[in-house]
């Protein structure tokens, strides 16, 4: 079972596909869950404290906006952990955790830098593209091996 980073990290479709075909999706939700289930100082709604943008300095310099660095504190460790990645390139309407274009550029760049199996896609726009989309993901995930 491989840890597969999904982009957009909030994607229902990718999260489902990865789990459906036997692997573990690394998504925003798991990073947020970790924070809201950990005791510390109160910082609602996401339990991202002002310390998180400081942790984000590992991936982005201090002149990079705090929102980017805070988000990188979610994604940076996941990018470090992942063993494969599926990237949807035309994810223009992923909000919230994926709501910042600058963070998204950095996340994609760091994934591209990493030597792991990657699958680059666009969202399907009709039924036939849907077939190719699902087939490509299934093939990619099967080739990773070690499915549960």
């Amino acid at each position, binding site marked *: 079972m491989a840890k597969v980073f999904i982009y*957009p990290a*909030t*994607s*229902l*479709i990718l*999260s*489902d*596909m990865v*789990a*459906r075909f036997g692997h573990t*999706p690394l*998504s*925003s*939700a*798991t*990073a*947020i*869950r970790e*924070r*809201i*289930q*950990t*005791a*510390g*100082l*109160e*910082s*609602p*709604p*996401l*339990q991202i404290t002002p310390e998180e943008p400081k942790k984000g300095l590992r991936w982005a310099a201090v002149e990079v906006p705090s929102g980017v660095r805070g988000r990188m504190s979610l994604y940076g460790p996941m990018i470090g952990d992942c063993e494969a990645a599926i990237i949807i*390139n*035309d994810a223009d*309407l*992923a*909000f*919230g*955790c*994926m*709501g910042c274009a600058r963070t998204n550029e950095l996340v994609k760049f760091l994934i591209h830098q990493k030597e792991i199996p990657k699958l*680059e*896609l*666009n*969202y*399907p*726009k*009709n*039924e036939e*593209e*849907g*077939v*190719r*989309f*699902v*087939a*490509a993901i*299934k*093939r990619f995930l099967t080739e990773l091996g070690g499915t549960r």
Partner: protein
Amino acid sequence: MTEYTPTHVGTVTKYVVVESFDVTPADLALRGYEISQGVMIKETCFGIVINGNEEEVDRIITELRKMDPDNIFVKDRGFPPGDARRCRANLGGARPGYNGMEHEMTLIPYVSHGLKELKKRDEKTIPLPENPLEHPLLDIYKLKILIDAQES
């Protein structure tokens, strides 16, 4: 700053979303209640949200998926069901993630179709989708057609 004491520690929360002619979110919730043991289930407009220990949640999801495998989709959620920090009633408007889900729900039917077709066709014959990072050169035959069109 005040101390934060988390709740639901060690549990997972998952969305089970249904986009089907045969199964409604209410059906999904009903079936969930039938087979659940000690997990929390909440119905939403897209489907249900389940919270509990991971093995139990996964067991229920495996069962639920059987109701309509190609039209039921699952993803993790950071917050437990009905958490005030993400609740629309408290925020005045939907959390941003909701709009993202709305967007993917418009594409889900294509994915469902893909899942169904995959069972019928020989997978090896299905061409790969174009890699969006590659900008393919213009096909020579397409080029000829374009030139011919210009000349005629």
